[in-house]
């Protein structure tokens, strides 16, 4: 039985920029602050620790708890920066949290970035071989994969050119064709899969549906509420790193739409 259980998961991470990247400046600032002995913690969603090094800590997730059991199709909604993608990355095991309990049963596959794990200097074909190697496929399986992706992505001569020469739509097609190959028990999906031209969209939809059907659990983030209404059985509404609402699709989405309509853009 695949399941996901989160209890009190919090995650904060530093946003490093400018001076905070410098060892010299960090050491100097630390020396200075021990001499002046400034105390007092600063609370809040985004706090600045120290003064001259400017390490901004972003509290991306705050005490997130939920359980997803087999068969559930969960949509994540919320404004930009509400913590949807961060949550997805936590579930995918890319971000590790120090606090709370994370219990995931079943293999996960995350569609986070269309060019995930791709080397832009390599050709489409070589990227597929690399992908096959990452998945631990045999030579035969890799060859079949190559043909399948070549047919599906329909890139023609570009297939043997470096990915950096591709238009953004072309990279999405290649990335999509590759990313939708595994059949994981838990599928985590970011909203990028909505890209591509109309003809590709129809093809993509069929392929994606096959993948979603095979998955025991789906977690998807999207701003396209119609898609979520169609696919999801449950919606988790994130706001500033916290769960604002969690329930059946229509209840949560109605409340969400009402809230969005209230707040001026």
């Amino acid at each position: 039985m695949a399941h996901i259980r989160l209890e009190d998961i919090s995650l904060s991470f530093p946003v490093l920029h400018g001076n905070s990247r410098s060892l010299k400046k960090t050491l100097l600032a630390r020396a200075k602050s021990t001499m002046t002995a400034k105390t007092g913690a600063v609370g809040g969603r985004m706090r600045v620790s120290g003064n001259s090094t400017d390490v901004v800590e972003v509290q991306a997730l705050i005490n997130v708890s939920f359980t997803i059991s087999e068969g559930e199709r969960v949509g994540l909604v919320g404004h930009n920066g509400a913590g949807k993608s961060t949550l997805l990355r936590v579930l995918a095991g890319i971000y590790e949290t120090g606090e709370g309990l994370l219990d995931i049963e079943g293999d996960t596959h995350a569609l986070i970035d269309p060019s995930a794990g791709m080397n832009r200097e390599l050709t489409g074909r070589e990227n597929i071989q690399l992908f096959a190697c990452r998945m631990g496929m045999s030579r035969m399986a890799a060859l079949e994969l190559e043909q399948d992706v070549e047919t599906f992505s329909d890139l023609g001569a570009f297939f043997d050119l470096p990915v950096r020469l591709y238009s953004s739509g072309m990279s999405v097609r290649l990335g999509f064709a590759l990313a939708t190959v595994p059949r994981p028990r838990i599928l985590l999906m970011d909203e990028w899969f909505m890209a591509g031209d109309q003809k590709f969209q129809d093809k993509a939809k069929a392929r994606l549906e096959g993948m979603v059907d095979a998955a025991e659990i789906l977690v998807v983030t999207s701003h396209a509420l119609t898609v979520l209404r169609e696919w999801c059985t449950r919606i988790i509404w994130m706001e500033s790193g916290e769960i604002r609402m969690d329930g059946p699709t229509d209840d949560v989405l109605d409340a969400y739409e009402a809230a969005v309509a209230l707040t001026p853009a």
Partner: protein
Amino acid sequence: MSVSSPASDVARDKAPRRQARRDAPRGSAAARAWADWKETHRLWRLGVRLGWLDIRLRYRGSALGPFWLTITSALMVASMGVLYSRLFHMQLATYLPFLSLSLTLWAAGLSSLIQESCTCFLDAEDMVRSVQLPLLLYAVRVVVRNAIVFAHNIIVPLGVFALYHLWPGMNAILAIPALLLWALDGFAACMLFGSLCARFRDISPIIGAFLQIVFYVTPIIWMPQQLGAKASLLLYNPFYPLLEIVRAPLLGHVPSFQLWAIALGVSAVFWAIAVRSFIRTRARLVFWL
């Protein structure tokens, strides 16, 4: 959708399904680092492949490929050999083989390994942030990449040896365990410098400058004997034993037990520091990139 099904089935049937991740990222930091290592071990082929691809990409479109490395280091050795044998009043026949070997061991070996370890994780930023792969895999990649470059460069001293009809004899085999020690140290360097340089971007140039100093104070272009009675002081320079355990066998000598002991001791301490630092920084590393 008919076109999409074949490989999907293939993937399902033949690819080993990834292990259920139950509480995998939990446990102590050390346990998680250990899990990272075990996963790296499982995927070692991918690490090797990434290293190869780096080389192929670097020289894509050039007819000579990685042999450009060989040519540039040959030119370097030839010009420095003629100049410094004059400066040091040495026979070219004794100095040039020594210099060609030392320069290659330093530039394509120790120095490049340490310098490239700094960008170990920075170079892989996109992958680290979007694909769940063990971090130590990128260390394997750096070590493999350097081993390939090294293999191309070692041709130059071998050519010089052939030119002067030198043959190190069976002692040369002793260089192999020493080179393995270098690979291990390079791996540790990735763990330590790779994560430090991700956090503090000015460490990489600091290490570069430091290596420049080491180049001059270590007997690379000059011979230890030139120091005369003060040569024992060299034992305080950890780079000297590390270099000598590879160089001496290739020149036909057996390195002393003392040199090996120091090289192993230094490596052990370095490893201990690197492992500690990696355990502490591993989980935060992705946020620093």
